[in-house]
Structures are given as structure tokens and as C-alpha cells.
């Protein structure tokens, strides 16, 4: 009969299947739509680059922005966020406007510092280690023809992925790009990534700029736009390459920060959603909370099953070896050789995940090349994504202990 773990597994399967099919439905809906937007709208754009000790990349970023194929670029503003290296001098030598301030921690401070100085109708925020493609801006601004659009996000890809952790992030970024495009159909883009996102300046000012109390200003601002009834769009054809954490440790720190910011944002808006009428944020918030909750529940089920299986395996293997009998448990063989409903559902979810990756790569114009990429993909689907709940739990602990730092 079904045990408690069996029932939890079935609920987990149901929810995972729902989101998988939801994304497939969104994909089919997206295919029906013609998104060839006429490039005939060129509002003034100010590019803001917050920079803290970015001497290695700042010039390349400024050059990439100068190379943008855009007729109405008002200004490039570098906000030197209290750098101790040559960031400021290099930026000044490149002939762009440089604002200087003391470092206060999170990125919202330099962005808010720049906001009063912005002249353009659109404020494009670019990370100091990111490199927009020449046509990215002109494609992205077209979405602002709709007056309700407060922000436009872009396709962020990884630059020069070499180490294994970089290659895994590279896969993740492709999947995120495509997921964000599909979430647009539900008006549920819940983050405006820092690598390159565009904001309608007057709306940004009207809602009070970025939240200095939030560790991930890009998540919080997206939720605030949605909460206030504005739209966020995703320009798939606007591409930007960005630097990513090169080591596992840096990656972990970044993900913990994202997770803390996500939780902070959720805690800020969920009570408001209960009090307010229907908001475009409702689905995004539900999606966010559900994915967080289920990843943690799934993680504990996973850990429980793995712990149980490993201890059973070790017990059997060691004793069987010492007793000189068959070292493969018949119990384990039974599970492998006779399919049941759980194995079948597991297989269905794996197939859906592979289909999802294939569609994401195809629609974003990326290719998997050779055995190496396939190996990375297997690693991504098996190991990488199972690390997230652990990060989430760690982030929650830090938050509860009030040990938050940018």
C-alpha cells in the first residue's frame, strides 16, 4: 500500500508535471504569436553602470555600450561605488560621465544614486562585467511602445564558460532565458537581471526607485512593478554576455544571496497580496513560493530516500562481501527490473526535463556540442539542480540568524 513518502512523491510528481505542462502550453502559445516587432521607436536612453572594483572589465563594458547600434543614446553613467582600484580613472579616461559615492553594500545604492541624474526616458542598467550585443538595445526598447510596460529584460548568456561550474551555469542561463520569455505570457517575469535590464525612468522614479533594504534589488523591483499593475517584457533577441562566478565557492555565495533576496521579497509582498485585490503579482508570487516550498520538500524526500538506500546498500554490500555471498542485493535488483508507477512517473519527469532543455536550446539558438556538453547536461539535471534546495535552506537559516551581507 501507499506510504507517506509514496504520497508525498506523487504530490511532488503532480506539481512538477503541472509546471512542465504549463511551460509546454506556454511554448505552444508563444509559437502562435508573431513577435516580429518593427524597430521604429527610439526613445532617449541613459545607460547606468554601477561599478565596484571593476578595473578588469569596465573598459570592455563601456566599449560594448559605445558600440551599441542605437540612434538615441543620451549618456553613459558609471557610478563608482567606492572602488579602491582604478575603476574610476579608467571610466573617466573612456570619456563617460562618472558619479562617485561611498560603498554602502548592495547594488541598489549606486542605482538609486544615479537615478536623479538620468536624462533618458529609459534607464538601461548594465553590470560592469556585462557586454550587450550591438543590436540589443534597439530591439529591447520596442517593447516600451506599450505604455504599461515598466521594464524590459534581455537574454543573458554566460561569457567564456570554461570550468565545470561555469559550464553548468551556462546551461542554466539558457534555460532561464527561455523560461523568462514564457513567463512573460503570464505577466509573471519576477526578476529584471542586472546584466542588462531597461526601466521606464518616470515609472521607476514614481515607485521610489530600488529598495535599499533588499539584497536583490532586481527581484524586488520586478515584484513592485507587478504589484503596481505594470508589465515586464522579455526581449529574446536582445542578447548580453556576462561574467559569472568562476569558482564553486563564489557561485555558492551568489546563490545564497539570490535566495535570501527572494525570501526577503516574498516576505515583503505576500502579506500585501492577501490584503489587496487581484494583482498581476499573484501568479508570479505563487509560482515563486510554490517552487521554493516544493524544492525544499523534494530535497528532504530526496535526502531521506538517498540516506535510506545508501545505508541499506552499505549494510548489504559489506556483510554480503564478508559472508562470501552475492554482493548485489536482490531487493535492489527487484526495483530495477520490475517497472512500477513510481519508476514510470520518474521517467516521465526526466523526459519532460530533457524536452524542456531541447526546446530551450532550440528557441534561444544555442547548440549542444558533442559528448562534453551532453555530460554537462546530465550533471546539470542530476546534481546541479539538487543543490538549490540546500542553498535555500542555508539562506533561510542565515536570514533567521540575521547574518545577511551583499
Amino acid at each position, binding site marked *: 500500500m501507499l506510504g507517506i513518502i509514496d504520497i508525498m512523491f506523487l504530490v511532488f510528481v503532480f506539481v512538477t508535471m503541472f509546471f512542465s505542462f*504549463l511551460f509546454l*502550453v506556454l511554448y505552444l502559445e508563444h509559437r502562435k504569436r508573431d513577435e516580429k516587432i518593427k524597430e521604429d521607436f527610439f526613445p532617449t536612453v541613459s545607460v547606468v553602470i554601477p561599478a565596484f572594483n571593476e578595473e578588469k572589465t569596465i573598459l570592455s563594458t563601456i566599449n560594448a555600450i559605445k558600440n551599441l547600434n542605437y540612434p538615441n543614446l543620451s549618456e553613459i553613467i558609471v557610478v563608482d561605488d567606492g572602488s579602491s582600484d582604478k575603476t574610476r580613472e579608467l571610466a573617466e579616461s573612456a570619456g563617460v560621465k562618472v558619479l562617485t559615492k561611498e560603498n554602502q553594500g548592495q547594488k541598489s545604492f549606486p542605482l538609486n544614486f544615479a537615478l536623479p541624474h538620468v536624462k533618458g526616458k529609459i534607464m538601461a542598467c548594465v553590470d560592469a562585467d556585462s557586454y550587450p550585443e550591438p543590436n540589443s538595445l534597439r530591439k529591447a526598447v520596442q517593447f516600451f511602445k506599450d505604455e504599461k510596460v515598466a521594464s524590459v529584460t534581455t537574454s543573458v548568456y554566460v561569457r567564456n564558460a570554461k570550468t565545470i561550474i561555469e559550464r553548468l551555469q551556462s546551461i542554466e542561463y539558457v534555460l532561464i532565458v527561455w523560461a523568462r520569455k514564457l513567463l512573460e505570457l503570464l505577466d509573471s517575469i519576477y526578476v529584471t537581471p542586472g546584466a542588462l535590464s531597461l526601466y521606464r525612468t518616470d515609472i521607476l522614479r514614481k515607485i521610489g526607485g530600488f529598495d535599499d533594504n533588499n539584497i536583490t534589488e532586481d527581484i524586488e523591483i520586478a515584484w513592485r512593478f507587478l504589484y503596481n499593475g505594470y508589465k515586464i517584457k522579455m526581449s529574446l533577441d536582445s542578447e548580453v554576455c556576462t561574467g559569472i562566478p568562476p569558482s564553486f565557492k563564489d557561485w555558492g555565495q551568489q546563490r545564497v544571496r539570490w535566495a535570501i533576496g527572494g525570501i526577503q521579497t516574498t516576505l515583503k509582498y505576500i502579506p500585501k497580496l492577501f490584503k489587496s485585490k487581484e494583482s498581476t503579482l499573484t501568479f508570479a508570487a505563487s509560482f515563486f513560493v510554490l517552487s521554493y516550498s516544493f524544492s525544499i520538500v523534494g530535497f528532504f524526500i530526496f535526502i531521506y530516500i538517498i540516506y535510506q538506500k545508501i545505508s541499506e546498500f552499505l549494510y548489504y554490500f559489506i556483510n554480503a562481501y564478508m*559472508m562470501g555471498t552475492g554482493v548485489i542485493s536482490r531487493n535492489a535488483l527487484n526495483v530495477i527490473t520490475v517497472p512500477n*508507477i513510481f519508476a514510470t512517473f520518474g521517467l516521465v519527469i526526466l523526459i519532460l526535463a530533457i524536452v524542456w532543455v531541447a526546446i530551450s536550446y532550440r528557441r534561444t539558438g544555442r547548440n549542444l556540442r558533442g559528448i562534453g556538453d551532453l555530460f554537462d547536461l546530465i550533471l546539470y539535471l542530476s546534481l546541479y539542480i539538487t543543490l538549490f534546495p540546500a542553498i535555500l535552506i542555508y539562506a533561510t537559516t542565515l536570514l533567521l540568524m540575521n547574518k545577511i551581507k551583499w
Partner: protein
Amino acid sequence: MRNYLLLKAAVITVIIFSVGMFLGMWMDGQRYEEIKNEITSLNIDWNDARLQSLYYQTFLEDDDSCSSALEVNKKLTEKIFSFGERLEKYERINRFSEEVLEQKKVYTLLHFQLWLNSISLKKKCNADYNTIIYFYSHYATGIEEEQQDLQSSVLIDAIHRCDGNLIVFPIPLDMDIQSIDLIKAQFGIKSTPTILINEQTVLEGVQDTETIKQIIGC
């Protein structure tokens, strides 16, 4: 639009999930039917063997009849033992049917009868084979289940090494069968896994092949 898309995804999920659940129930049902049919067939085989044995005892009390009865008993024991492995596999896999439990009881009673028949034939025919009753728990999980699995492997090894000179009868202790309670009481069986060798020696805990071989001498 958004609600329409969500509803569409929900409907697809419910359909696919339900199909999966029905498929799972159907697979379990198929396995249950297979077990049921096989048990019926084994019951017929057992009755046939028992009648043969009775017939030999009534009309043909000679060496030939003894060897025939022993041979029939041995073949049936092997057949039931081999079916037991499949039954065990199915009961671990099946999730939606509780009826396997009933079939397991019938299977256990078959083993019990075969054990008694084996003892009776051994005495009557002066046979030199050994019998082991392997007591296990039907509801064991985790490490306890692995212990039992390990003991099963050791006993299967022993059967092969003793080259037909050893018959093993796996008997679950905790399936609420009164006749099993009789054996438990008679031989003082308290825990699982435990083995009873030749109706004399009781060994508690997992035993290795060498210990078993030393006692039964094969």
C-alpha cells in the same frame, strides 16, 4: 488569457497523471492476477503430489515408490521456491493492491505443508536431505529488510552448494497464521531472521554459508 493557459495545463496534467495512476493500478492488477493464477496452479500441483504420496503409501510401499515421492516433493519444492522469489518481487513493487497479502498467506501454507511432507518422507524413506525453515518478517523495512535479503542470498548459495541435498522453506512469522504460531511456540522462535535446521537447531540472526554447511554437513 492567463487563466485559460493555467486551466489548459491543469487539465493536461490531470489527464496524464490519471492515465499514469490507472496504468500503475492496471500493472499492479495484472501482477496480482498472475500471482493468483500461479497460486491456484501450485495448489493443484501440491494436491497432486500429496495424493501421489498417499497412493504410494497405501498401495506400493517399496523403494521405487519412495524415490518417486521424494522426486515429486523435491520438484514441487523447487517450483514453489522459485515462485516465491517472483512473489517477493511483486509485493515490493505493487502499491495499489493489498490482496497480494492474501495470496502470500496461501503461499506460506503451501510451504508449511511441503515442509511437513518433507519431514514425513524423510523418515519414511530414510532420505538424507536437510531441511531449513527460514523465518522472516513480512513487514520488515530498511536495514531489517536488507538483513533478510542477505540471509536469503546466503540460503540460496547454500542450496546450490549442497547440490540438491538441502530444501529451504521461507516462512513469514507475522502474517497472522495460526499454524505458524504453532511452530513459533514449539521451537521458541522470537525474532527474524531465524533459521531452524532439521527441526533441531535454531539460529537467530544472519548466518553465513559456512555455519550452515558445518551443521548440515554438505
